Each structure stands twice: as C-alpha cells, then as structure tokens.
C-alpha cells in the first residue's frame, strides 16, 4: 500500500526533474500512508510541522478527505484540488496531501518566502504624506491597495502571464469608475502576451503600449500605493505584477509626471509654484545645452553684450570647438551618472566629488572646458531631476536637441520642439489625449494642471481620460 504513495511521490519528483528543493514526507497512520509533497524553498517548515504534520499525528479519530479539510487541518488555505492542478499548487508554495486510503488531493497553503516589508520607495520620497511603498509580493500590494479603497467595487482580476514564469498579473480597478473599454483592452492585451517569463512589470509595460517603438512613456507607473489608489479613484486601471514593486496604470497623460505626491500633501499655492518650476526644469533640461550651442554657433547677436563677453573670454583658447565641448561635457556627466548609479553608495559619494570637483573645476582651470559650458550642461542635467520619471526620454531628447541646436541653430530647436509636440499630440492611447488637459484644453481638469487648486475644488471626475462617465475625446 505504501508503495502507491511512494510511487506518486516519485512521479512528481521526476516531473520536477528531481530538483533539490523538492521535498516529500510520509506519515504512516493506522489506516494507511499519507504523502506530503512540497517545495521546501517555498513553504514555512515550522508551520508545516505545527499546522499539518502534528495535528494529523495527534488526531485520534477517523482520517478521510473531509475530516482533513474540515477538522484536522486548521489552516486557511485548505482545499481539495484535482490531480492536474497538483504541480501548479506545488509551484505556488502549497503542500499537497494524498493518501492510499482516500481518493483526491488536498492542498494546504503555508507559503512562505522572503518578502520585503513595505517601506518608503527611494524613487519617490515624500516630505509629508504616506511613506509606504509597494513590495515585490503581489498579495501585499493588493492588501496595500485594499486598505486604501474600502469598497466592494474594488476588483482584482488575476491573469497568468509567461509560459515558464507563470507570473501573476493582477488587473485592478474600481468597477463603475474605470471605463469598461479600457478594462477590456487591458485584459485583452495581457491575455495575448506570448512570453517565456515576466520578471518585472516593465515586461508587461511594453505590451500595453500601443506604440512600443516610441521614445515616450505611454504607461504610468508608481511605487506608492497612495498614488495608485488616487489614480484608480480617477478611473484608471492598475496592473500589479508579481515580483515587481512597480505598479502600472493606464491610461497615462504627460501631466501625471508633472504631479508629485508631495503636491497633494502641501499647500496648493506652493504646489502650483513647484509645478511651474518643474515645467521650467523640464524645458531647461531638454533645450538648454542645444540652445546655448545655437547661440554660440549661430546667434551671437542676440546674446546680451555682457554675457557675450563672458562667453568669448572663457572660450578663448579652448582646444575644443563649442559643439565638441558641449558633447564632451555631456558625455562626462553621463558617465558620472552611470557610475554613481552602479557603484555602492559609499563609492558613489567619492565619484561625485571626483566628478564635480576634480573633473569640473580642474577641467575649467586647465583650459579644457569653459565654465559657461559646464554650468549649462550641469544645469540641464540637474533640471532633469525635477521630473525624474521622464529621465530616460529627456536624456535622449537632450542629445537630439544638442544635435539640432548645434547643426541648425534656434530654428532647428523650434522646429524640433514643434515636431515633438505634434508627435505627442498624435498619441491617443486608451481614448486619452496624451497632452490633456492642455491639448485639447479640458477646462475642468486645469485645476489639477500646472496650477493646482485645493482638493475640494475638484468636484467632478477628471475628464481628460475615460472613466465611469464614459467621456471620450
């Protein structure tokens, strides 16, 4: 009799290619043998002995499938599963019970794997306001959202993506608030994903984008549950991917990145000012080096005399031409940035000192680079972090505008800028104009645009993107 259980265990072990963490236990009772199969890397060993093994051992009564489920095992996640689902359950970190004296399989959920506790995400710290951030575990993330949205309308709908990884992707939305077309489109897109594995939400992101080749970000993302909850309240759909602390939201408008969670937890006048500065920062980040180059190479005549004198004095005798100089400084900053990202934090400090002091200051003193060049490039590099969410695309734009400004002058920059804006206005994904509420101008939503009004003033749902009201345009 024992052989039957043994055989089953062997069979499962074989299907798991005798992986090292595949474990099994056999309990021999008076009535017969019970087999336990699980992945020891995925379960709580102590709980296994305390909540499963011990109760069975100490049980004096009849042991059958219903008594196991209803009386003996006191865990929450105890259920009977079909034979075909055994492997999936084991992979999910559950213990499978089977026996030679009853038919059927029981799965007990005692999953335990290392997870982070929610902490303040380093990418979006707040001065005042909630500090919790999403973690890698999708269940915790769901909890974080549920805690903020006590409504029965909050729906989590789980889909499995990735042939090998079998990653859980949870589409969450508030029923009646989120637009049904958007929900449908998102689900359809996720269902159609053909991929081996999903290790981060970024893998899903590129499938959700309608123009994956585009430089511009088309899907929102956040590490903070308060932000995602707020977005869901506006009618957006959130996509939680297991093993990723980044939650995606659709639809996305550019204005979202101009808004920081800090804005909602401070005085709205201050928030308006900060948003305006962020806007200026974004502009400076994109065009400043290109513009400076254009002035130097083509339009010296519009520079005020004193500034011109400064530039002429400081660039006199430099080995580089203006274009090469800016490219050189830009490259230098980019290298320093990459280095500081990858080095451990204590070394990061050292590199910034080396970068700022040694390379910058000495470069100027040695007559290799000019102070205005350093200042302009540094300004644009720093200004970029007023909108850190747009960092990657702005960096590409910086290079593009350096080429345009240096090669074609101000006309090149203006043309390039209008081209980019024209392009952004063609982005109309998920029935949402990318540049809303400014293009097209949606009057109601302007109160949470660059100028922020008090939260009470936002009486209506945003109309920039479709939501329960079914607004389109």
């Amino acid at each position, binding site marked *: 009799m024992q052989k039957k259980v043994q055989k089953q265990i062997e069979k499962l072990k074989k299907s798991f290619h005798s992986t090292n963490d595949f474990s099994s236990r056999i309990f021999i009772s008076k009535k017969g043998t019970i087999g336990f199969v699980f992945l020891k890397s995925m379960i709580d060993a102590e709980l296994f002995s305390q909540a499963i093994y011990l109760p069975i051992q100490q049980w004096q009564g009849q042991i059958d499938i219903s008594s196991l489920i209803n009386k003996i095992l006191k865990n929450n996640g105890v259920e009977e599963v079909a034979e075909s689902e055994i492997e999936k359950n084991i992979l999910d970190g559950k213990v499978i019970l089977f026996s030679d004296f009853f038919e059927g399989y029981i799965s007990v959920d005692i999953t335990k794997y290392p997870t982070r506790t929610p902490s303040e995400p380093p990418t979006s710290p707040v001065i005042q306001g909630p500090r919790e951030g999403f973690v890698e575990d999708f269940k915790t993330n769901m909890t974080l959202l549920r805690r903020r949205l006590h409504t029965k309308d909050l729906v989590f709908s789980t889909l499995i993506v990735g042939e090998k990884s079998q990653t859980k992707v949870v589409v969450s939305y508030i029923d009646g608030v989120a637009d049904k077309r958007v929900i449908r489109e998102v689900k359809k897109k996720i269902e159609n994903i053909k991929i081996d594995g999903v290790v981060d939400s970024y893998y899903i992101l590129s499938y959700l984008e309608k123009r994956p080749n585009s430089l511009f970000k088309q899907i929102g993302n956040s590490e903070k549950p308060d932000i995602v909850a707020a977005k869901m309240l506006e009618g957006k759909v959130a996509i939680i991917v297991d093993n990723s602390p980044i939650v995606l939201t659709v639809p996305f408008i550019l204005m979202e990145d101009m808004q920081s969670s800090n804005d909602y937890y401070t005085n709205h006048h201050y928030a308006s000012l900060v948003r305006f500065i962020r806007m200026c920062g974004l502009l400076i980040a994109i065009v400043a080096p290109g513009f400076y180059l254009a002035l130097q190479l083509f339009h010296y005549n519009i520079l005020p*005399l004193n500034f011109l004198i400064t530039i002429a004095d400081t660039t006199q005798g430099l080995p580089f031409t203006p274009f090469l100089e800016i490219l050189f400084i830009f490259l230098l900053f980019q290298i320093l940035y990459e280095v500081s990202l990858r080095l451990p934090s204590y070394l990061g400090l050292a590199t910034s000192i080396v970068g700022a002091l040694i390379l910058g200051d000495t470069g100027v003193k040695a007559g290799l680079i000019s102070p205005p060049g350093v200042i302009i490039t540094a300004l644009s590099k720093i200004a970029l972090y007023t909108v850190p969410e747009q960092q990657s695309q702005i960096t590409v734009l910086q290079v593009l505008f350096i*080429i345009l400004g240096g090669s074609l002058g101000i006309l090149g920059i203006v043309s390039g800028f209008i081209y980019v804006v024209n392009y952004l206005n063609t982005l109309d994904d998920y029935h949402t104009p990318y540049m809303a509420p400014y293009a097209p101008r949606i009057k109601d939503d302007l109160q949470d645009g660059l100028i922020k009004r008090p939260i009470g003033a936002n009486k209506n749902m945003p109309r920039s993107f479709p939501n329960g009201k079914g607004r389109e345009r």
Partner: protein
Amino acid sequence: MKKILNAIERYPFIIVLVIILLFFTPYALFSPGESRRRAIVLAIGLDRVDDEYEISFLTFIPKPNQEFEQSNSVVSGKGSSVSEAVLDAQLTLGKDIGLSHAKTTVVNEKMLEEDVSSSLDYLSRVISLPENTVFVCTNTSAKELLMATDSLEKNLGLKLDQLISYNANEVYITDTSLEAFYKGYYSPHKSSLIGFIEHVKEESSGGGSGQGSSDSGAQNAGGQSGGQSGGEQAGSSNAGSSGGGSAVASSSGGGSSGGDEASQNEGEKQRGSLEGQSQILNKADAVVLREGKKVAKLDVDNLNSINLLSEKRSLDSITVENVKCECGKTVDMTFLLKNKQVAIQTDFQNGIPIFIANVSIGVQLTEIDTKGQEIKQNAQSTKISDEIASAIEKKIRSEFARMLKILRDSKADVINVYDEFYRGNRKNFEKFLSSLNDKEDYLNNITFMLNMKIRQDG
C-alpha cells in the same frame, strides 16, 4: 531594399536626422564659435580723411581670463566708400565685423558740413546694426574719441552710450539715435537733433617726465608711434591701422614699460597727468541737422528751453540774479524746475499761425547766494514771491527766445511745430505754407505764445 524603403516610410524623421548628421553636423562640429569668427564691435567711428572714409571700430578682444575684464581695441580701415573702409578694417582684423552689439556711432563734426546721410547709407543698410544705436558727433576725429572712450571706461567704468542715454533721458527732447536722425531727416521739416560729445585734448601741464613728453608727442604725431610706445590696449591693433591719434595709449599710461623703480613712479605720476590729456566732456550739447547738414549747435541751456515743451525731460535748474528774498535782501537764487505740465495748442488768427504753449512749472528753491550778506535764512520756508516768480518767468522767456532765434535762423524745426499744426489745423496750415515764399522757413512766420504759470513745488 524594400525593407529600407519601408523603414523610411514609417520613420521619415530618420532621413531628416541622417541628412542633418551628414550635411550639417560635421561642419558644426568643427566650427569655432561666432565670438571667435567675428569681431564684436561696441562702437563705430566715422571720419573723412583726404577724400577717403575712415571707419573705426571699438572692438572687444576676447582674452582667456577669469576676471571678465573687458579689453577693447580700436581698429580702423580706409576706403573710398564706407563699405570699402569696412572691408579694409576687416582685413586688418582678420575677422568679420559683427555690428549687432554696436551701441554707439560717432561721426566727426566736419562730416556734418555735407549731407551726412550719404555717409551713413551703409550703416542704415546693415540690418544687424540695431536702430537704437546712439548717434553722436564730436569735435575731434571719431577715432580719437573711440580711443578716449576706452579710457573713460577704464577710469570711470562708464560707457559712452550710458553717458548719452543719460542725456537722452534728461536733456535731449528726442533720442539721439540713427533711427531718430532718419526720422527727422525724412520728415517734412528735414531737421534732426543729435548729441554732441566734446573731446578735449589738453597739453600736459608740467611735471611730465621725459617719457611723458615723448608720449604726448606721440599723440600729436599719430598712431604709429603710439602703438610702439607700449600702450596696453590699443597698441597692437593701432600698429596695424593707419589712423592718427593714440589717445588710448597715452591715457593708459605707457610708464609701466620703464625698467627701474624710479621710472615706474614717474610713470604713475605721469598717468595722473596724462589722463587729463584726452578726455570726454559731456556738456549735453547737441547739434541741429537740416537735410543732414549741421545748421546750429545748441548748448544745454538751449536744450532746456526746448524741454519746456516736453513734460518728460525735467533736469533743469534756473538761477535768477538780484531778487529780493523774504528777508528783504537782494540775493541770487537757484531753483529746480519740477513737475512740468505742458499743453500745446495751435491756432490761426488772421491767417497767422499761433503756437501756444501752456506751461505750468513747479519750482523748488535749491540754493541762495547771499553775496556775502548776513542773512538768517531758512531755505525750506522761503516762499516764492510774485517778484521772484516773475523774475523766473522772465529768465525762462529770455532763454526760450534765444533758443527760438537759433531755430528760426537755422530753419530747423526740432520742436515738432510742423506736426502740431498738421494735427491741429491741417487745412489752415497747408494754406499758410503755400502762401510762403520759402516753405521751409515757416518758423519765422509763426507766432509763439508761451503762457507760463510758476508754482511753488516742494
């Protein structure tokens, strides 16, 4: 191939980028900045020497330093026309001339003997030259004035255009710019008013060492020796140019070239005295041009009289002599004229045009010259008696009449009489003009009425 074509169709901006990268970027990559390719001109001087034009540029010479000190130099070129002279100067410099930062244009007073507009034609055609460029004339050569400008900047930290801006704000009734000149030139009365800056070259007043005298000699002799004498700023470029005058060299003090201490001290002493040798005197004088030719020169008092007709210009004071003050003694009193209110009217009586200016002037006592008498004075409470008021009025009237005489004699209508009549009584005025033998001599046939009200102010 088809794939490439498809890609081009899908992403046409790639072609654009490739074209830019291929055709424009390589050139731009290795092109030096505009500031290196062009000489940035700060002021332009125009002279006429022996049937040739000489154009001088006060240019900024970039020097690699961290102090942002401006180092200028004067470069000139000669030619039978202004544009040829510019080309000549360009050859001397080895750079293109960039005129977009030129703030001042100076012409020699002698050039105003003929229609100056023909000399200015080139400058009016250069689009990069801003229209608000200050336009003034000077008594010496324009080149020398530009050189002296440099020392003005070194010693006082003052630029010529700032000096003239001050005049234009406070004294001149119009701008003194190229634009203002042309505005007057093309107007029916063809008159314009431009600023006059006096350039004084004094002989060194004793105490000068041997070197000092040799320097001043160089100044008289011409630029060549000035360049060699070790002038700091303009030396090198002067040597290349053929112009006369080494004002900069002399005013910056070549004494530092001396080797031993004694000569250095002497040099410093000499610098003090040499600075006095060539200096710019701003007396806020102006020259009246008619059809581009100088017809009159107005001093600051004349200009202040003109300003009676303008509310905006207010820097004026008046001294009345021998008036009785509150204490009963006869003194000289100086008043500041403030808060003018001006209303101009035009009228015709019996076919005679009458230009009526109703002016209300606030006066503020600023000074009393007691002429040595003992007076217990309290300036603040001094009332303006009727006697004083009438004395002020009399004085202002006499000044105004003096100014009007100059304008009438020169037939130059820089006080916009023509415009006022044209606006107010166009038909009558046209009739009146047609009745005149010399239509341009209308000022002499117009009656001016000055209604004045003097009130105490402050």
